[in-house]
């Protein structure tokens, strides 16, 4: 981990690019909070360079699964195999340090990697540019930024570590429709140009269909993955009409998606 591996990156990357192996394999993962089972028998894999959307009703344990995969939470049972070099995470709440400027927030993860000063600056600049942050906003504190700019900062922060895998935990739930679309486009665009794989947790089927190659549907009670569907076409190349057709097809004719919009807010965590 860290900058020192950057020099070896190109050959490593080309080696892996040939046959797309799995980037993340979750096998039989189970988890419980204070004795209450929230996840059981979850098996899921993500191929390198692939964006997988994980959908399911609120409170079904999607976020917990993501936290387990991202090494924030230890699973109770089961195994997590990570075959990527480094990951970044974008949370629902941007989780920026309130006392640091946008620039310092973006380069925060680089503290944990051995990195030269100039390297750090270069990476911060390029990540900020990729997330389309304006240079004058980099010196502002999170309180001075709008919700969309904060989420852009969080995305830039995930990109500074030059990840080949990014976890998105319902990242755009709080944003309005237009902003959400722009953010999704940002994810699609950078997934293509940086070529990272991603696990994108969302409860919005339209969002899942826009950004992902494949959609995995989680069981209502967290008892495994109910099934998966490959979304036709490449992310970013599907028109709105296509997307509408895909999503309404899923919702009306596919039994897999029957419970996706069931919400029991009394049980939601």
């Amino acid at each position, binding site marked *: 981990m860290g900058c020192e591996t950057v020099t070896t990156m190109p050959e490593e990357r080309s080696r892996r690019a040939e046959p797309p192996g799995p980037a993340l394999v979750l096998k039989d993962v189970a988890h419980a909070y204070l004795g209450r089972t929230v996840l059981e028998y979850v098996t899921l894999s993500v191929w390198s360079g692939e964006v997988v959307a994980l959908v399911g009703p609120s409170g079904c344990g999607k976020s917990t699964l993501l936290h387990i995969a991202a090494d*924030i939470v230890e699973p109770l049972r089961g195994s997590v195999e990570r075959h990527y070099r480094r990951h970044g*995470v974008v949370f629902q709440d941007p989780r920026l340090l309130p*006392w640091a400027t946008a620039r310092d927030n973006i380069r925060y993860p680089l503290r944990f990697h051995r990195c030269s000063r100039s390297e750090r600056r270069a990476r911060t600049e390029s990540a900020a540019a990729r997330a389309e942050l304006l240079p004058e906003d980099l010196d502002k504190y999170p309180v001075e930024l709008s919700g969309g700019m904060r989420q852009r900062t969080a995305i830039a922060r995930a990109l500074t570590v030059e990840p080949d895998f990014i976890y998105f935990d319902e990242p755009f739930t709080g944003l309005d429709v237009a902003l959400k679309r722009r953010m999704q486009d940002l994810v699609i665009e950078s997934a293509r140009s940086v070529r990272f794989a991603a696990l994108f947790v969302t409860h919005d089927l339209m969002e899942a269909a826009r950004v992902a190659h494949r959609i995995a549907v989680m069981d209502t009670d967290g008892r495994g993955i109910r099934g998966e569907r490959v979304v036709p076409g490449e992310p970013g190349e599907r028109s709105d009409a296509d997307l509408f057709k895909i999503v309404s097809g899923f919702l009306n004719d596919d039994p897999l998606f029957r419970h996706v919009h069931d919400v029991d807010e009394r049980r939601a965590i």
Partner: protein
Amino acid sequence: MYVLDRLGRIGRFVWSGWAGLAGLSLFAAIWQAGHEHYGSFILPAPLETLRTALDQLADPLSWEVAGITVLRAVEGFGLSALVGAIGGLLVGYSPAAIRLTRPVVTVLLGVPPIAWIVLAMIWFGSTDGTIVTTVVVATVPLIFVAAVEGVATRDRGLDDMARAFGAGPVARFWSLGMRHIAAYLFPSLTVGLGTAFKVAVMAELLANTGGIGGALAMARTNLDVPQALAWVLIAVAALICVEYGFVQPVRAELERWRDAARPWGVKR
């Protein structure tokens, strides 16, 4: 850009001194009115007091007297900062320990410092130990509670974020925990320092162990009101110097981001 920003903030800080001066002048005016109403014996004029204080400061012996008090207060404060902060940090990370120590802290805060002076006098006699003990007992709970509060209110979301980016527990503590706790600890340290000075003077007066408190006791015996007020003035002036020369600049540095949320209006 950075230098300009820094100069601007220093300029604003110095400029805000006028407001402080205006407040102090108002206080002096009320004091003067009291003096004119009650006469010199009860309440000497502010200018007279200032003159006495300056005369005292010209005397090297007074510096020695003040030095004794400062040394005791700082000793006690340093000890309680160390004990309070470290103890608070350790306890804060364990909910069970918080529950155990909460009643103890309530008891310690509830006992008036004057009661501790009596005990300390019995234990240590008229020595530095009495003063330092009283100061420590009076300030430790303040600092301890703030440290516990700081640890208990840390943002677990940020912690998870750092963990997701590969930060170990030590790195998380230094980059997130400490920064958050400092925002709680620092104000309590300032209050603690003020309390340390006040309690030291009080303890000196009651235990008759020299220092500013001793000088005040002498002035009381001689019914020398200007002398007594001059000593109070000196003690307060010393505190103001520490407060605005050190405490406020450090706090402003820590709280810069809060200032950013107030784009216009009164900058405090």
